[in-house]
């Protein structure tokens, strides 16, 4: 972590990107890639979904958006074709209708990809589970059209809930973790829109995600050319 944090900080830069990803060829390519991911997700969700039965029953008393996010992400995490972006796609699906879904998936996948490059997570954490949770929060924030401040609070709520133990990677509990990440993302976005506040520097701060879970935090890998160069949809 650099001593002199740039102004604005990394969390703020990511929040601004989530709230308003700049138009251009990069975004167009990312939306095209999101369309492919969404189609794959819809195929997976149309198939048999026995793996999600415990989640479905355990969340019987929850409201529909949270139940849907949780169950869909659990299903998607169980299929190799959709595993990587399960929580991101499910959060986007639960949070909004069609045109915004694609932008939400694009933004969410980009935030997750950037964080994968920026964080050298400790060995006990499953890196993709941690970064997908932040991507899901970005997707939900984009889908709900949050302003930069609310988006930063939504990302902060996701950061403080970052989890994903290495030992559950590839197990049913790991898939449930993706389900939970998607539901938490939707919850966090709605809370932030309602005025719930969170840390201003949840990713790069002294007691934030990077400091607690990773050996290193590469600010530039997260922020450089964010929105102009898309790692999740290379041109």
């Amino acid at each position, binding site marked *: 972590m650099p001593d002199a944090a740039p102004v604005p900080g990394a969390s703020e830069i990511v929040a601004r990107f989530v709230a308003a990803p700049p138009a251009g060829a990069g975004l167009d390519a990312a939306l095209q890639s999101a369309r492919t991911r969404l189609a794959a997700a819809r195929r997976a969700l149309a198939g048999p979904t026995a793996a999600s*039965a*415990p*989640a479905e*029953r*355990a*969340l019987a*008393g*929850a*409201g529909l*958006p*949270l*139940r849907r996010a949780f169950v869909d992400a659990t299903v998607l995490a169980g299929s190799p074709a959709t595993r990587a972006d399960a929580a991101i796609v499910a959060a986007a699906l639960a949070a909004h209708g069609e045109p915004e879904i694609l932008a939400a998936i694009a933004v969410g996948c980009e935030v997750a990809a950037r964080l994968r490059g920026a964080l050298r997570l*400790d*060995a*006990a*954490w*499953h890196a993709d589970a941690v970064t997908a949770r932040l991507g899901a929060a970005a997707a939900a924030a984009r889908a709900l059209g949050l302003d930069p401040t609310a988006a930063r609070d939504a990302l*902060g*709520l996701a*950061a*403080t*809930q*970052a*989890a*994903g*133990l*290495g*030992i*559950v*990677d590839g*197990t*049913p*509990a790991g898939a*449930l*973790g993706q389900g*939970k990440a998607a539901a938490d993302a*939707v*919850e966090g976005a*709605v*809370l932030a829109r*309602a*005025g*719930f*506040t*969170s*840390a201003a*520097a*949840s990713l790069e*701060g*002294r*007691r*934030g*995600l990077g*400091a*607690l*879970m990773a050996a290193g935090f590469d600010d530039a890998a997260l922020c450089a050319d964010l929105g102009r160069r898309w790692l999740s949809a290379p041109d």
Partner: protein
Amino acid sequence: MRSTSEPDVAAAFAARLGALAREPLPAPLAHEAKRALINVLGLAIGASHHAGVDAIVVAAGELGGAPSAPVLGRTQRVDAHFGALAAGFAAHVDDFDDTHLATVIHPGAACMAVLVALAHETAPSGASALRAFAIGCEAQLRAGVAISPEHYERGWHITGTCGVVGAAVTAALLLGFDDASLARAVRLSATMTLGQREAFGTMTKAFHPGKAAANGILAARLAAQGADAPGTILEDPRGFAAALSTRFDPAQLLDDVGTRWELADNTYKPYPCGIVAHPSIDAALALRERVTPDAIAALRAHCHPLVPELMGNPDPADGLQARFSAIHGIAAALCDGRVGLPQYETERVRRADVCALRARTVLVASPGIARDAARLEARLHDGTVLEEVVEHARGSAARPLTDAELFAKVELLVAPGLGPQAARRLIETAMQLEADGFDAVLAAAAPVATAHA
């Protein structure tokens, strides 16, 4: 007991907790658990109209299922998930809840929140509600001790991370689980930790015990459906303890369960500010019995060096800063004769009388004075010098808050919203929880239907 060599620590831990739940709570523990419960119920009611609770109620309206849980101190009902979130949040948001000093866990908020959220669905007897609460707190504290102090030092908010484990135990016991299901709930809860200290100073700090409660319920519900996490989840090199700390001592989870209670070491804050300032505030309250503030020319508070280091702000600009100003606590004690939440409202913090007295007060770091002690020296305008010495602060381990002091604190929290009668009824019903049942406590915690929107 050769605990450290047992495989599957989570299952062994759950078996001990399950056995504990089949016995009556020892009377001193039952009493301590009620004190912890009353304290967090009072706090949650006192904070029931905080903007963060408003946001949680809005989210419950958009995302929640059928209402089944009360929002303490309000008339709205929400589903169990948001009921847990609201209760755990409100109990912690004023930083005035119980503290286990060895771990700095605030165990009451999350376990109380599970009780409030699941009371309707599980209809526990008073005794089983109290047991579920006490054993959940104990589980949470033992999990914390096992990974302390490195865990908190790295930057984790231990009230959230370990709160999830305790909340899962409370939920599982309320739901009547056998030991095998309880073990699944504990293992799943270890995958749902939250709480980074970067969030301190924002609403998200108090979100931690609230969401810990909701996660504990989720872990228990998933366990009830047969879901599970790997057996070595706590001790595995890619598991709970390794991810969250560089220390793991499973003996702290497994040894002497039922004979040694971490919950017995729980403490209660008498004043809503940093704990190191409490001895000086005690001394100022005693001095107030002898002198009025305007007779004082100068005040010197001799205290442990941590006091000026952590709470040295001489002239706080608002209520939040005042919580980190020992000098404000001293001045407010002398001006108002009490130090509660009203003394930390910005308007009170900035009024002339208290500002003037703060300007005449200094902290003197004294390495010879213990953390729970203080000596206050007042020079009066007529030249007289008065002294007050506090050897052990109220609420310290050596001088626990008495029941009467705790009840007075809870009355001050509850009465402004619900009235003095409801405050006394809440205390009475909670102190005779085994006889009255938890429903009676919840009834006392609800406003009369027309009192609040």
